[in-house]
Every structure is written in C-alpha cells, then in structure tokens.
C-alpha cells in the first residue's frame, strides 16, 4: 500500500482574460505517493505546469485544497510557503534558473544555508558531495554562464536536493537540453528516485516519461488517465517506450 504525501482536492486555477475567466485546471483530485516518480504528461496548454506550480505552492490555486503534512498549502502564508520550499520541497526548472552571479557551488550552498538544519561547513561539504555526484565538481567555482546547459541543469538538481526534500518537483527539466545532456539528467533523477526520492515531474517527452513509476495524463485541466509502471530499468527502455506510446495513443495524444 503506497503512502500519500500530498493530496489535492478540487484543485482549480483560472485567470481573468479579456473580461472573462479562462479555466486552466478544473477541479483536479490527485494523490502524490511517497517514493514514486510521478510524471504528468499532456499537450501544450493542457495545464500541466500550472498544476505543478499549484501543487508545489509556487502559485496559488483559485479553488480547492492541496494537503501536505496535515496543512493546506493553498491557505499557507508566504512565510510558511517559503519555509516549505527550503525544507520539504525541491524544484527544478526547464530553464535551470541558476542565480547568474553565484558560482555553481554557491548556487547549491545558498539553498542549504537557508534551511539552517546544518552548519555552514556541513552545507558546503554536502554541496561539494552533490556536485561530485552530479559530475560537475570540476566546474564548481564557475559561474553559470561559464558552463554548458547540461552542467547547469545538473547543478540545478543538486540545488534542488541539497536540503533532502520530501518531494522534488521538476518542470520539463530536459526541455532545454540536447540529447546527451537529457540522458544524463534523466539518469540522475532516476538514480535519486531509486534511492528513495519522491519526484513529481512534468514533461511532454516520452523518453523522459518512461523513467516514471506512475504516469498521469492531463487534458483540458483534468486528469484523463493514469498508468503505473515498474521501476525503470535501462534494459527495458524500448518496451517501456512502446507501452507509454500505446497508452498515450489510447488517450489521443
């Protein structure tokens, strides 16, 4: 029996536009389970990124609730949400979004310092370890503009996990990467998940989707389908890809 770490009920998001309302999410009910590599797929404009941001508290839902740790994220104050971001959640953006005037090691460490669970020395040690694990320790004192996109994204992953988040959000983390870097980043995420990290990722790339243990399909602001998979094994990549493609075809992807 899987343990739910986040439950969304009636999650809605709409925007005012030209005097009317545009509904992006329409009453989504959803559970995110501990240890899962959950992937949300959908066509462009289906609301998948909006849902990711609403679930992570990065953006406020118009209606509904997102229960996490017994509290409704939707009703949390800005200060509580800030606390959540540096203690329980990690976030990876499609465009990496590293702070451009901080070096890679500093980008990772600053998030660690915010958390205050560890001493500064411990944070630095952990950041060093993560960069090594991400295989970018040789460029750790470089600024983001001085490294490749793949290295930037690996740094962003290190930053996202420095505080050992209970849930890692990733918004199209491979969207801005080339094929080689995409594989490296997906391998890292898979590796994290195998080691127990819960991940919620948005993507429209089937190669990324096959890394999931659970796939959700979003269309017109609602979850239209779900597919559960076994843990990823690179040897089974082709068959998983075929399985996912077939599932997507059934949903008229």
């Amino acid at each position, binding site marked *: 029996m899987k343990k739910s770490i986040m439950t969304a009920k009636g999650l809605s998001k709409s925007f005012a536009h030209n005097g009317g309302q545009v509904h992006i999410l329409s009453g989504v009910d959803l559970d995110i389970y501990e240890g899962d590599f959950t992937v949300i797929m959908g066509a462009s404009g289906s609301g998948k990124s909006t849902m990711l941001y609403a679930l992570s508290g*990065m953006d406020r839902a118009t209606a509904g609730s997102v229960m996490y740790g017994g509290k409704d994220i939707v009703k949390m104050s800005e200060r509580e949400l*800030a606390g959540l*971001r540096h203690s329980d959640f990690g976030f990876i953006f499609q465009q990496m*979004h*590293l702070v451009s005037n901080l070096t890679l090691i500093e980008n990772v460490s*600053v998030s660690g310092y*915010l958390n205050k669970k560890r001493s500064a020395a411990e944070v630095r040690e952990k950041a060093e370890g993560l960069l090594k694990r991400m295989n970018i320790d040789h460029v750790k004192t470089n600024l983001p*503009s001085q490294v490749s996109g793949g290295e930037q994204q690996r740094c962003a992953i290190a930053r996202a996990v420095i505080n050992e988040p209970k849930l890692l959000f990733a*918004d199209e983390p491979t969207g801005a990467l080339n094929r080689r870097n995409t594989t490296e980043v997906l391998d890292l995420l898979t590796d994290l998940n195998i080691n127990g990290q819960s991940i919620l990722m948005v993507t429209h790339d089937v190669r990324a989707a096959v890394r999931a243990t659970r796939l959700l399909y979003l269309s017109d602001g609602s979850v239209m389908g779900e597919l559960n998979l076994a843990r990823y094994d690179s040897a089974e990549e082709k068959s998983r890809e075929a399985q996912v493609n077939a599932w997507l075809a059934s949903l008229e992807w």
Partner: protein
Amino acid sequence: MDILTLLKANIRRRKGTFISIAILTFIISMALTLILSVSKSCITSFNAAHSDAKSGDVTAMIRDIAFNDEMKQKLDNETIIDHYEATPVAVMSNGMTADKSSNHNSCFFSVLPDGLKLVNRNCTGYEDNIPQLSKGEIYLSYGSKTVLKCDIGDKVTAHSNSGDYDFTVKGFVVEPTFGASNIGWKWQFISQEDYDSIYAANLAASDDDKRNNGYMVKLCKADGCGLSDGKFRRQVNLDTDIISNSWGSLTKDMSIHYTNIYSDNVLGILLVFILILAIVVLIVAGHSISTGIELDYTNLGILKSQGFGSGRIRLSILLQYLLAELVGSIIGIFAAIPLISVIASVFDPISGYITETHLALGQTLLYLLCIFAASAVFIIFITHKVCKISPIRAISGGRREIYFDSRLKAPISAKFLSSTIALRQFTSAKRRYLASIVIAAILVFFMLMVNALSSATNSKKAAKMMGIDYCDLFINFDKAKSKEELDGILDTVKNDIKTRYFHGGRYISINGEEIHCNITLYPEDIYVTKGRAPIYDNEMLITEIAADELGLKLGDKVDAARYDKHEEFIICGFYPSLSDTGMATAINGKAGEKLGVKQETGGGALELKDAERSNAVIEALEKKYGDDIEVTIADDDEAMDIYDSAIFAMKAVIYSFSLFFALIVVIMVSSKAFTQEKTDIGIFKSQGFTTGKLRIQFAVRFLIVSIIGAILGTLLGRLFINKLLSVMLRGIGITNFYSSFTFAGVAVPAAAICVCFFLFALLASRKIKKVGIRQLVTE
C-alpha cells in the same frame, strides 16, 4: 511620423522614467529661476535705489577743515569729474544705541536729501510721500533696523564728541550707499532744527586734530570717463587728495559688493550646487538610458529588422529625454515666479533696500539651454551602444548577460546570507551602481561643504585662519588708554591671555588707493600666513586679496598716506582679515603715529587660553580697575548671527535637495535594477527566500553603494572643500578657508545619505512582493 509614434510609445511605456527626469529638471529649473531672478532683482533694485538717491560713483566723507576752497577748485578742475554734490554732515563719532542693540561705528547725520524713499510700515514697499521730520525725530537707513534691532516709535541715542542726542524713530529710508546692515558707517537723517543745533555743538567741540563736522561728497564721473569706479577714485585722489583727506570713502562698485555680499555668496554657492545637481540629472539620465537599452535589446533589434536605423532610434531616445527635461523646465520656471519675491525679501533686512521682483527669464533660459545642450551631447554619446545591436542576435534572444562586468567574487556567508548576497550582487554589477556611487559622493560632498561653512565660525582655529577675531572677552575703557597704560592693565591677567586684539581701523591710501588699515597695538599677536608680523614702524602686513588688487608682493615698498602725511612702508607679510571684505592692511602702533594716529585705545578684545576662566578674568580686571573698565563675555556677535542664519538657510536647501535627489535617484536606479533582476528574485523565492529577506537584500545593496559614495564624497571633501570655499568666499575676504572636519560634521551627512539610500531602496523594493515564481515558467 515614425519617430513620433516611437516617441509616444516610449513615453507611455516608461512613464516612471519620464516623470522622474521631469521632476529632477523641474527642481533644477525652479532653483535656477529663483537664484538668477533673486540675484537680478537685488542688482536691479540696488541700481534703482542708487539712481533715485542720485548717489555718486564715489562717496567720500571728508572733514570740514579739508573741504576748503582749494579742494573745491581742484574738484572743479578735475576733467574726469562731471559734477560733485556736497551735503554737510554732523558726525556721531561714537555711534548709536537703541534699547536692544548698538552700533559703535561713526554715523553721519544730515537733513534728508531729495530722492530717498521711505519704506512702508510692513516693509514690503515704499510710501508715496515722505513726511517732514519734526524736532527729535529721525529717519534711519533701512539696514539700521537690523543693526539696532529697533522699529518705528522706538527711542535711539546718537553719541557725538559734543554729547548724546535722543531721537524717536519716525521711519526707515533706503540710503543705498551705506544702508546695508553689514556696512559700519551709517548716514541718518534728522530735522533741520536738530541738525543745526548738533552742528553748532560739534563745531564747538572740534579742534584742528579732531573734527566733528564734515561733508558727504558724491563724485560723479564725466561722460567720457571710461575708468572703473576704483580707478576713478584713485585718479581723483592722486589729482586732488580728497580721499587721503577723508575719514573714508566708498565707490558704487564697493557699495554693491558690500550690500549684496550675503545674497551674492549664498546665491553663488547655491548656483554651483544646482549646476552640480544638473550634472547629477545627466548621470541619472545616462544610467537610465544605458539600462533601458539593455532591457530593450530585443525590441530594438526588432525595430532595426523592420528598417529603423540606429540614428532614428537614438533620436527617439534623445527626444524622449529632452521632452521630459523641457516639461520639467517649463513647470519649474512657472513654479518659481511666485517664490522670487518671497526669497528676495529674505535679504532685505541685510541689504537695506526693498527688493523688487524681476524675472531673469533670459538668463534662466540661457542656463537651461546649456543644460539641454550638454544633455543632448551626453545622450548622443550614451546611445552609441544602439549601433552595436544586431537584429538577428537580438531576435534570437542572444542578448548579452546583464551581469559580469566583473569577476570579483565577494564571499557568501551562511551567517550573513542576505548581506553577503547583496554584496555579491553589487560586485557583480558594479558599473550599474557607478552612477549611484558618484551621485551619493556628490551629495555628501555638498552636505559636508555646507557643514564646513556652518562649523567654521564655531572653531577658534578656523576663525583665526580665516581672519575672524575670535575672542572670549570684550574690554571697554571709560577713557582712552595709552599703550603703556594698556600694558599695565593686561599684565594683571597676563597668564590667562592668549591673544590681544587692540586695534583701531583707519582708512589710508596706499599708492593712491584707499585701503582699510588696522593699527594694532600688539602686532606680534596677529596671525600671519606668510612673512612676519610688522614689528618695526616701517613694516606693513597686507591681505592676499589687497596684494593681488594692488599688484604687491613681499618686500615691495609702498607709499602710505593719511590726510597730509606720507610715509614709506615695506610689505613684510600676508595675513587674513575680513575687514572691508579682505581689502585690508595692518601696521603697528608706532607706524600709526607716523600717519597721525595716536597710540591709544578705547577698547579691544581678548582671547583666553581657557575660556572657562572668563569670569575669573573679568573679576580680576574689574576689581583692580573698578569703574574705569567694562569687561563683557563675547557671546553675541551680530555679524555672526546674520552669517549663521544665512548658512542655516543654505544648509536647509542643500540638505533637503540632496535627500530629495537621493530619493528620486534611488527609485529610478532601483526600478531598473528590479526589472533586470526579476528572474533572480523569482529564483530566490523558489529557493525559500521570503519577500522580507529579499527586500533587505535589495536595500543593503544601495546601502553598500551609499557607503562607498559617502566615503568617496568625504575624501573629496577633505581634499577640496577648504580650497573650493577659499575660492568661492574670496568675495567676502576669505582666502584661507579652514574647516577642521569634526567627526559629527562628517558623520551626519554621510549617515543621512546612507540611511536615506537604504530606506528609499527598501521603499522601492515593495515591488518584490508582486514577483511570482510562476514567471519562471517557460511554456
């Protein structure tokens, strides 16, 4: 049309920048209009008063004994004189007293001549007619109202060698030659009956040596005389000896100089400040344009791809800023108009005339035109980077990184996370903050300058170096004392005395030029800046200003004349003096005797080694010399009061302008920085930074900027303020301005700027609250 469309779009999109530049120019324009118009109003009003009073180009106060037929003949024969007019005057050698104040300088009493104007009761204009004076009534020159602190109906007493005379103040008239409160001599007006009786009494009290009656002689240049007032006076004196035989004289130029000395200097310093603020506006505009181009890189690339040339884009930017400056300037001129009369009237009690309002539109427009021209050149220079924008690169998002004009990596500390990140943000984009640093430095520099002005008179050392007799005690004797008697008196308290100021002022002519001369009984106590004190009776000290004016240097020989006596002196040194706004000399008592001045004194002043001992010294002197001596503590200096109030007004203007400029500059610079860093703010928020932390981080950066600016401004101030003020205050006789820069004097302006930059940036950072992490999403 395309330019117009672009211009409208730019203004619409950058309303904040447009309004900020317009506000800054509004302040500059309003201040310029005020300064130039008040200055014009003062000069025009003075000239009108001079013209109404038919004052001469030179006015000499000559002893009756010297104004004989021979002198009149010489004046009649003088070709450079058109005509002269002599008004008989009775001299009140010992000045005047009123209930609240007194003037110890000589006053000259006559009946009211034609042409003088009577100030109305509210002191806002003039009466149409001047009522006749009855016995016991007096019209005082307007500046005496300030000096004697009296009003209509008050009693005043005039002290002559023949006795004391009481009068009731009937009103105040504008006597333009000596009327300013800062000119010692005063020409006052009484009824014919009173004049006749005082004249007779004075005549009876006169002897060959001491004359108590004389003439106020107005000398007017002949039409073809192209000489300046000073040279005219010198030439007339060389031909007729009239100045050498006078108690003193004043040219029209000198009269204007003394009369408007406060307004000229206060307005002069403010004008320099405002022109520097105009440079600040250019710096702010330059920064705004530069960052605007960076932010608009893509749009400008698109415009280029659509056929807009760099020239047209640059022209649209130029027009946008010039239009803002034009709007601000026009509003500024109109806003200043009602204030001109208010500001001008502030100087009336000092200058001794009612200032009529004159708008200096032509001069203001000329200044503004120069500012516009400088602005246009600067903008054309700044916008050259538009030429480097490649349409293809811009459209494909190939904009250069905003950061990294430096690789300097200030360390990030876990303990001071916000502050160290702020420091990193600053060091990563130093160029962006360069303008703010320069502006903070300029503002601190000016605030320090005005502090230096206000603190200069509070410091003994500073006052001495600038030529102010800084004293602790005033001493007055019932009867004049000889040098030997004075030595005996001062010997009683010799261990407490630091400096002895016992000197009498006389006007002598040096190489034919009339110069104030301090005949000092203790030349060794004079503060000498170069050379040495005049120990011998053929030595003379001179101020730098007088030496420059007369072309004299150390070791030069000069011919000094007083009345009919001529003596040769050697310039033995330079000294600072504020007497006659720096046109002064000093000789010792024996040298004075050679020019016919007795070595005696009616009083003087002392500077003590320890001011705390003042009461003990008073007690010791009064105990020994009883009723023969009056010793008072020197704590109420009229001249310093006026000086202090003028400085206070200037301080208020400079401080308030500086802080207001700081507000506008910080808001402009921070709003650009905010736009540039929106993404970073979103990233920090996504990592768990709260809005409060980010706002502090944002404001700390401006604190760092202002601290660097304040340090720079303080260093520049330390190096240049004394020199700059020495040049600027030369007009009032200060060639050696000195300010010691106390800790408070430096800390207050620096702290004010730093706190304001921090608070204003914190205020401007309210927008951070509105930045959503959602903006980081790339769909």
